[in-house]
């Protein structure tokens, strides 16, 4: 060894690399922000950024729900359809049945929770992977949404309902504040509570969790209920934002949530994920959507880009996993 530089300088390179590797999603986000601020002149304006974060808040909220299910090793592909159904139902409640929002909103939160319970109950009773279960229920929920909607645009909500999706507190859009609150509570539950431990245990090793006394089945149902509950918050905000009850609202929402979760390091196999990563993932998706709209990409090209991003996110997840297992093999073999 002819290298006489101090140890820490020699290690600096690998260390920076290690830190960067851990924060790949964050670096991607920085890169995209820089890129778009150069190529899209309207991108880095206060007005646009505010629009951007309001856009992401809707999928951001339900992504937190999805994350609970994903960390436990499950998946919920019915999020978008839950919104389609509840959105129409909430509109009917307020317009056709003339219910006060103060009653209709808690009711729809209950309905959302029940939809989640249906997913959970089917998963444990049919013993089929939730991927298939929720693929099935997503069609059912969406179909019922269409049926009760009867091809109408439902309008005529009370003005008091406008605040949730369109209001501001200190200049911050209400949905953004709600997203932050949901994310903070979600993060607290996952990282600090006894319940959170059980979620990670379930996703990390289901059999070990069972033998450690975790009631696997009730946990699964509860997690789907949490996901349904949080998703119905999104329903309320979206309807208040759009102010028209229609079946288009919410469609494809699960796609953005799933991509964001995977980008942010929530593992497809469960047992891993942080709220910070999830938020970064959500912002990446939001930035992409927003920039593509600014650059007036045709709709279909946007779909191509989004599909590509999902696959990259999955590839990244798998790559991280295999890198880890390689390191582990190296350690075990040594």
């Amino acid at each position: 060894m002819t290298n006489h530089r101090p140890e820490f300088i020699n290690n600096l390179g690998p260390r920076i690399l290690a830190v960067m590797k851990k924060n790949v999603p964050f670096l991607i986000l920085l890169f995209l922000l820089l890129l778009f601020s150069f190529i899209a002149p309207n991108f880095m304006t206060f007005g646009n950024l505010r629009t951007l974060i309001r856009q992401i808040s809707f999928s951001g909220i339900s992504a937190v729900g999805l994350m609970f299910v994903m960390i436990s090793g499950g998946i919920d592909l019915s999020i978008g359809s839950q919104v389609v159904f509840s959105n129409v139902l909430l509109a009917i409640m307020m317009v056709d049945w003339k219910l006060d929002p103060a009653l209709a909103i808690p009711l729809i939160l209950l309905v959302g929770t029940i939809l989640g319970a249906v997913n959970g109950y089917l998963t444990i009773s049919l013993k089929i992977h939730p991927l298939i279960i929720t693929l099935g229920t997503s069609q059912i929920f969406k179909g019922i949404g269409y049926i009760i909607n009867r091809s109408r645009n439902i309008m005529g909500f009370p003005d008091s309902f406008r605040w949730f999706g369109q209001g501001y507190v200190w200049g911050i859009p209400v949905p953004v504040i709600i997203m932050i609150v949901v994310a903070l509570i979600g993060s607290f539950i996952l990282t600090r509570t006894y319940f959170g431990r059980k979620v990670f245990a379930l996703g990390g090793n289901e059999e070990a969790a069972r033998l450690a006394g975790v009631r696997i089945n009730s946990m699964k149902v509860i997690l789907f209920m949490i996901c349904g509950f949080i998703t119905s918050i999104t329903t309320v905000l979206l309807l208040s934002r759009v102010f028209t009850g229609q079946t288009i609202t919410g469609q494809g929402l699960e796609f953005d949530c799933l991509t964001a979760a995977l980008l942010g390091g929530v593992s497809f196999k469960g047992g891993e994920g942080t709220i910070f990563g999830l938020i970064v993932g959500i912002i990446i998706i939001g930035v992409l959507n927003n920039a593509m709209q600014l650059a007036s990409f045709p709709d279909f090209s946007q779909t191509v880009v989004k599909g590509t991003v999902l696959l990259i996110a999955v590839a990244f997840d798998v790559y991280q996993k295999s890198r880890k297992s390689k390191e582990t093999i190296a350690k075990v073999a040594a």
Partner: protein
Amino acid sequence: MDPKVILSLENITKKYPGVLALNQVSMDFLEGEVHALLGENGAGKSTLIKAVAGAIDIDSGIIKINGQEYHKITPSLSRSLGVEVIYQEFNLVPALSVAENIYLCEKNENSILFNAKEVEKKAAKVLEQFDVKIDAHSMVQDLSIADQQIVEIAKAVSKKVKILIMDEPSAPLSVSEVEMMFKIIKRLKNNGVTVIYISHRLEEVFRISDRVSVMRDGCYVTTKNTKETNRQELINLMVGRELKESYPARKNPPGEIALEARNLTGNGDRNISFSVRKGEILGISGLVGAGRTELAQLLFGAAKMEQGELLIKGIPVKIKSPSDAIRHRIGLLTEDRKGQGLFLEMAVKWNIVFPIVKQISKYGVVNTRKEEEIARHFKERINIKTPSLLQQVINLSGGNQQKVVLAKSLAAESDILIFDEPTRGIDVGAKQEIYHLMTELADNGIAILMISSDMEELLGMSDRIIVMCEGELAGEVQKAQFNQNYILDLASGIH
């Protein structure tokens, strides 16, 4: 005439980030010998095998096979030279037949189609050599572990193997199945095949091997003729210091009855009655498939009890789920610690406190200071070797993983502990520590049930042994009557 050197390693070095897995290792293997390879976990045995099999690239050194020198070996090259490895984890496709597995990668020159009938015939012929009753047509997933092992060997033999490397082949096998495997190894040896045999069980090394090489910390230590060495010497060579291998003496006699089972039936077991006292180690013997693990699952509520009664300290209890068992202070240390005992990707302390995380939470929020305290306490008490409590369990050695499993049960303050194969795949040093811990626990009044396929360990550790055979209790043996052959007879259903 000296036998021919078939495989020769010269100064093999392999570095992994942070560790020197193989350090200038040189070794010779002779044609037609059974050569045992010994070393603690982390000594570099697995890395060495992988180097020969071409599963990893070595950094420097030469591998000579049949006189030919190689600097770099690929898996296919190694295969073509007649090297076959049977890893601890089987490489079989469960949903294919035995014959299809044996000839999985074989190409047929005459046809692109897979001729099932012909392959089955060929496979049956290969299996005939082993005089076993395995139907070449049956699915691998329907076979016992022991039969799957034989299929692995058959797979190797069908490829005209010259050097057969076996990594802990006896680990999943019961005593009589090991006997059968030894017969097969002897037959291969007579046909001129070199067998490299890796095992933690020294008695097997003495029974089967001609020569034995010892590795330690990535270095080659020495090679001995098996006939000219002894247990104690090999152990000292492996650990690099004097280490007494013994079963620690117990201070306190067993107390009152802690757990009594009456006519337990379910999960494939029938009519099992026994009792275990506080401070007693009750050994449970039997062949693989005798229903021992199933019994543990019954006691722990992990499987459904159809009939029977369980009494804890004389009081009847209903245990319907693992959480019931934990509430009654029963702890289970499963045989498959990676699959059932541990959360591999989680931190050491996370794992240790998991079963009691509810108790150390207030309003559902985990008290992390208490968590740290408890984890640190057990890390020190049972000497878990980990750089930090935040280390992922997956990065620990087998012995230390087993200690984390043990720490979990201790943290839960179990009164009754069920150990299922507590020392499987663990090196000599860690084994001793586990034995000492079990003894200490028994001395402190904990009732221990120990399922083990290692006869020596059973005889050494138990106060009493019950023997199971085909899901039923075959007999009970008191310490004064301990006798390996008698227990084996009971286990095979002879008595």
